[in-house]
């Protein structure tokens, strides 16, 4: 009986409003191609105006050269776009998630919405894990002949939030694109919650 129920539940069609919100959620992700997704900001006594690094879907911009020049003292590698294989395939991942969202609206089945919500949620988590791993490697894998070696010190940038690294205060957090991506995810998951809540209410 419950396979039938399951089938019944997941094959259930979506509310028209839900389909529109899913389309909105998917289309919002288009912005990822036009605005930066993540930002790292740094301040030091000598840099009261701050230094910034913007991570886009396929590149890094901002004061990258200056940050690299400063980082060489403590043996961190020069930041180059080629360091990040992610920039080669991120455009496709976002395109995939975006298309998945649009298809969900077309398929008009709750199962598709489940899948979309899971995909978008995992994509976000994967991005954060990937960023953490890069940060760990960049902050720990130091040149042993660097001019300044502070025993026991590593320079992993914060994943999200603020951290003091020698004379620098570093902040890491979403940029416009990141916030929009978060909104996309929340819309997808919120729609799913709305659908589930609605079906429970209609049953009782």
């Amino acid at each position, binding site marked *: 009986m419950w396979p039938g129920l399951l089938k019944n539940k997941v094959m259930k069609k979506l509310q028209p409003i839900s389909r529109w919100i899913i389309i909105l959620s998917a289309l919002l992700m288009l912005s990822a191609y036009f605005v930066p997704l993540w930002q790292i900001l740094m301040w030091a006594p000598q840099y009261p105006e701050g230094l910034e690094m913007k991570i886009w879907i396929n590149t890094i911009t901002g004061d990258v050269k*200056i940050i690299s020049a400063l980082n060489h003292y403590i043996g961190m590698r020069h930041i180059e776009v080629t360091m990040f294989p992610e920039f080669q395939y991120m455009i496709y991942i976002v395109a995939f998630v975006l298309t998945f969202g649009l298809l969900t609206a077309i398929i008009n089945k709750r199962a598709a919405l489940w899948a979309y919500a899971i995909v978008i949620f995992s994509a976000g988590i994967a991005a954060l894990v990937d960023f953490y791993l890069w940060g760990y490697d960049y902050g720990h894998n130091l040149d042993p002949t660097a001019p300044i070696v502070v025993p026991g010190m590593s320079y992993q940038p914060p994943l999200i939030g603020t951290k003091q690294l020698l004379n620098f205060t570093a902040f890491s957090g979403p940029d416009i694109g990141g916030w929009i991506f978060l909104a996309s995810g929340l819309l997808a998951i919120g729609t799913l919650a709305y659908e589930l809540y609605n079906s429970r209410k209609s049953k009782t």
Partner: protein
Amino acid sequence: MNKISRWTLALTIGVMSVALYNCKPKGPAEISMGDAASKVYVAPGKYDEFYNIVSGGFNGQIGVYGIPSGRLFRIVPVFSLSPENGYGFSEETKPMLNTSNGFVPWDDLHHIALSTTKGEHDGRWMFANGNNTPRVARVSFKSFRTEEILEIPNSGGNHSSPFITENTEYLVAGTRFSVPMGNKDVPISSYKENFKGSISFIKVDPQTGRMNIAFQLRTPGFNYDLSRAGKGPSHGWFFFSCYNTEQAYTLLEVNASQKDKDFIMAVNWKKAEEYLAQGKAKVEKVKYAHNVYDEKTHTATSTLEDQVLVLDVQELKDLVYFIPCPKSPHGCDVDPSGEYIVGSGKLAAMMPVFSFSKIQTAIANKDYEGDFNGIPVIKYEAALHGEVKKPGLGPLHTEFDANGNAYTSFFVSSEIVKWNVKTLQVLDRVPTYYSIGHLSVPGGPTAKPHGKYVIAYNKITKDRYLPTGPELTQSAQLYDISGDKMQLLLDFPTTGEPHYAEAIPASLITPTSTKIYKIEENENPYVAKGEAQARVERKGNEVHVYMTAIRSHLTPDNIEGVNVGDEVYFHVTNLEQDWDVPHGFAIKGALNAEILIMPGETQTLKWKPIAAGVVPFYCTDFCSALHQEMSGYVRVSPAGSKTPLKFSTGATEEPAPGAGQ
């Protein structure tokens, strides 16, 4: 005398002494300063409201100060060498100081003119004159660097310069000393016959700022002192004060002070343009240097020009008129409306204010009192708006605020006097410490003064500061003019001897200030755009080191194969692209100076080793935590040695067998 009267006498003497003591004039220290401190206090990290661009006089440089704080920010080398940053020492900047006489490493910088559009400050360029070896310079407001120096031929000393027209169409250069044209060898006593005045009109390209002498006016042999362009209704005219119309050539202090009135010379430069277009100018063969600094190549070039176009004001009618002005006029200042021209006779007991519209009427009616060598002399009364009666002693210069008031400096009575331009009433006077020369109201010479302050540039400081031997600091004083009464706010020391200065709102300058030079745009032929391009090349006995500097190493930092007798050129490129990270370069025993290289820039220092050995070089600008490590060595071998040319950074090798034994 009885006892009582003796006591009375003693008491009277006592009372009188106290009274006398109290009658003694109060010194400056006792003048109440009120809330002056808070008016000039610019909190740490905050900015001043105005830039004050101050001539350095005999230091040949321009001082940049903040107003109201009076803090000195920078000294911009213009006509003088600057060992501090290598200006005039580096191979790139040496041509800036070239003249028809050769390399002249100093001048006497008197006046500043800031570029204007429609008579208002536009924040593009500052211009300055070289008084001694006649020159004018243009300094960029973006980089605060001297970009161009133009020598003035046929001039005996460039004093009435570099005053500008309202859209910076022209700046002028009038000769202080009349001289025989064409370097003629004549007796000095033939002054009247052979000596001539010369006024150059220098065209300024509105896009690039490039200057060139459009034409020269050949004028009678006087001393041309100061000048101002007309504006608004008087745009198209220029006014010059002239002294020594006696045409004396010796003991001028007596012989040039004989006449009751000298002249203000009114020049119709639009008419001059017409004559020029009609081909009325004569071509004269001359020799003068034109030096231009290119911001892309970071290199100056000097070109020797060989001719000027000359308009003779005695032959060409309606071009020049004389207006009698009492007793050796110095300042000749035009008010913001362009209608009034203030003549300041240094030795006169009053100040005449002339009216431009009256001058025009007088010319139309031929209301002349005669002529000087064929040039009409307008009747004094016909040109006069009125006289400021008993303003003070020794008037020199006048600046204006936006409310119709004028501020005149008085050298002899050591004061600034505020008066109303229309009514000619004296409104207020304040002492200066001591003997003010020029003065400056922000925007004072423009059509739209910014007002707020008047700054006095004094000739004597005496007891105002801690003494430093016989040679004392120079000084300026800041007064608040926002109220009815002027209030002294601040004394601040200046470098050189300050003559004229202008103040301009910081908001016109800061947004476009250069922070770095882009390394991709560096077109210096000796640039090394990255350490991979760093190298050493030998061309005969010239050794060219293409060196890079980045925190905190120079590449190459080990150089071998240089011989005694070689000429070594260190072309140092600063690879930094970050604000305020200059690097410096100096090498032991160099006979010139250091060079400072801004981010993205290339500069060259020449060095001739005179003895074998190993010679260190290093970065002179404390650039980073490892600045002390930023150094290197050149190995110098005896002349004719065959030591192989080698260069590296970061490469170490085992000592050669036998080395060091």
